[in-house]
């Protein structure tokens, strides 16, 4: 449909594009920058918490802030998002407390926010599965008559997030087929961060990903994923098209995963530091800062206050994560069904009794046959 969309260069200069424009003023750009800064801090803090053993795992988003905040901020309240597991920036834009995201990675739950209330589904770890959920949800939106009414508070779009690797999954391709077939109001937002763990983009696709859409019968657009003005503008246009009944769009946000895939990954085994250095020059935050400063849209005081705000966020997460309530054994059993059955209730009660037997028994070295026999 269109060439690589970029509205703000890595040097912080505005660019024109025939199909897309960013119309927000300096206020809004400052606020986008603020979100990116806080999200980056959230991410850095989480990585540090993982290193200190407070989280079991972390999937860092560093480098992808513009793609996520741009897409997240383009949403309306009634829109619904189906994320993968790295969408911390989108979660932030949906008003989800970062501690709820950390709680998942700490191993306490699988996401404790209310997907309905937040318009943001739980993270999905099985690659690509959520793309189909998004399409189905969008089909529901159609049936509810919430597309093409012209009412900005009613017309609804759905977003499915996934990575470049995910485009190889059957589920994602089936989602494309369904979305096209029913003209579902869905935006497929692919963050092409160039790598699926150790597999480079070339292992998934011989053509630019956005061009796949055409084969399925809907438009695809490639946007500079490190340019928040462009990701915002492109996502907003795609969302609007969906809300108006125009059907699906594939947005390929061309970006880079600056960090490891997760905290257990070692990217030095498969990629060159040259590549990382090259992408550092395209940093999504630096270019907005340059733009704001060059045009006198933000003062030193703005950046100083923002840094303090980020520090405060970091502090809140550091202390907050340690105070998160541990899961109880009852959560194992009581959440399996809406209505627990007798057999599972008996398992639960049996386990309660078993645990109680330890409380009664005299303490031994970690529990041995003695403990068990004491019952």
């Amino acid at each position, binding site marked *: 449909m269109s060439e690589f969309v970029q509205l703000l260069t890595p040097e912080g200069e505005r660019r024109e594009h025939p199909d897309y424009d960013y119309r927000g003023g300096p206020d809004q750009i400052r606020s986008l920058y603020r979100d990116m800064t806080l999200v980056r801090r959230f991410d850095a803090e989480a990585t540090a918490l993982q290193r200190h053993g407070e989280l079991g795992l972390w999937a860092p988003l560093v480098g992808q802030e513009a793609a996520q905040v741009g897409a997240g901020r383009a949403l309306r309240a009634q829109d619904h998002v189906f994320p993968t597991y790295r969408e911390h920036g989108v979660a932030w834009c949906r008003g989800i407390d970062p501690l709820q995201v950390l709680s998942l*990675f700490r191993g306490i739950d699988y996401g404790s926010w209310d997907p309905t209330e937040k318009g943001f589904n739980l993270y999905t770890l*099985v690659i690509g599965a959520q793309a189909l959920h998004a399409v189905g949800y969008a089909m529901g939106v159609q049936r509810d008559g919430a597309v093409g009414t012209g009412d900005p508070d009613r017309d609804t779009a759905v977003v499915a997030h996934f990575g470049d690797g995910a485009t*190889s999954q059957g589920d994602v391709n089936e989602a494309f087929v369904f979305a096209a077939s029913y003209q579902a109001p869905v935006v497929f937002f692919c963050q092409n961060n160039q790598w699926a763990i*150790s597999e480079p983009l070339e292992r998934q696709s011989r053509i630019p990903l956005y061009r796949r859409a055409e084969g399925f019968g809907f438009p695809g657009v490639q946007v500079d994923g490190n340019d928040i003005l462009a990701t915002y503008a492109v996502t907003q246009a795609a969302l609007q098209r969906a809300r108006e009944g125009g059907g699906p769009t594939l947005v390929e946000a061309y970006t880079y995963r600056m960090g490891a895939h997760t905290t257990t990954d070692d990217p030095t085994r498969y990629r060159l530091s040259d590549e990382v250095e090259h992408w550092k020059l395209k940093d999504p935050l630096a270019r907005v800062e340059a733009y704001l400063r060059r045009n006198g849209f933000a003062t030193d005081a703005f950046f100083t206050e923002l840094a303090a705000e980020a520090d405060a966020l970091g502090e809140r997460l550091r202390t907050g994560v340690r105070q998160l309530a541990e899961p109880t054994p009852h959560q194992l059993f009581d959440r399996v069904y809406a209505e627990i059955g007798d057999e599972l209730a008996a398992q639960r009660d049996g386990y309660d009794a078993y645990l109680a037997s330890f409380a009664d028994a005299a303490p031994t070295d970690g529990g*041995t046959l003695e403990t068990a026999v004491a019952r």
Partner: protein
Amino acid sequence: MITLAKALNAGLRKAMENDPKVVLLGEDIGRLGGVFRITDGLQKDFGEDRVVDTPLAESGIVGSAVGLALRGYRPVVEIQFDGFVYPAYDQIVNQVAKMHFRTGGKVTMPMVIRIPFAGGIGAVEHHSESPEAQFAHTPGLKVVACSNPIDAYWMIQQAIASPDPIVFLEPKRLYHSDKAELDLAVPPVPLFSSRVVRRGDDLTVLAYGPTVKTALNAAAAAEKEGTSLEVVDLRTLSPLDLAPVFASVRRTGRAVVVHEAHTNLGMGAEVAARISEECFHSLEAPVLRVGGFDTPYPPARAEEHFLPDLDRLLDAVDRSLTW
């Protein structure tokens, strides 16, 4: 001393040296050497045609392995984590498992599907599942589980040499923690056989994969209390090799099966039923099961509640002994 991970790596290497038709397929198995490094260095030594980094698509991996097998290759597929085998489930149970039967025996499916399985590593969702019963319930598949480096080294080679498709389960939490001396002069145990790994008189504990270690630890603890547990490593889940199990239970009169998978309709149910049928008159107590609860695998900080540990196993031992 060799770790279970290194033993698998060495076994894969040997199989690839012995048979040029052996081809490895999977996500990240090439340059990265797999997320657990089981295939470390193999692509460097055997090339990209023998160690194939695949697109991120499990149905694609297994489905294309079917084609390779039809063309005379022996694909060895790595599924990155247990919970990610399901996108390939249709290919495995409908295609891989049935090809020999459907072709009237004209075509074999010498495929190995390696799955790092079970929990206890503090992982996020879908990284700690025990799907063995789903595959053992599928005729046409064979399912084996290794529990130590020596078995791992031999079993992977035996599985690759086998003409039938084999789901090969690797206890991921033992990959790097379990070490043993590999003496190549000692001949391997045949692939489809269970094995008594500790002698005892009072009760037989049946385990496989990660729970073998749990059972051995429990046996050591029980010994201090004067209870003598025999531990059998089932090793093969389909087909089951129960003759040694029956012999053991006839002697001890009691049996407890322990696995991490959900208890309901799990391997333990089958083993308990078979022991009841064969050893009814020798039994002093019903065969008991200690397994994961019938709940989804919980978040990491609750997995200690889910996983059968030494205490839960000893609790069952006690219930059996005081029957």
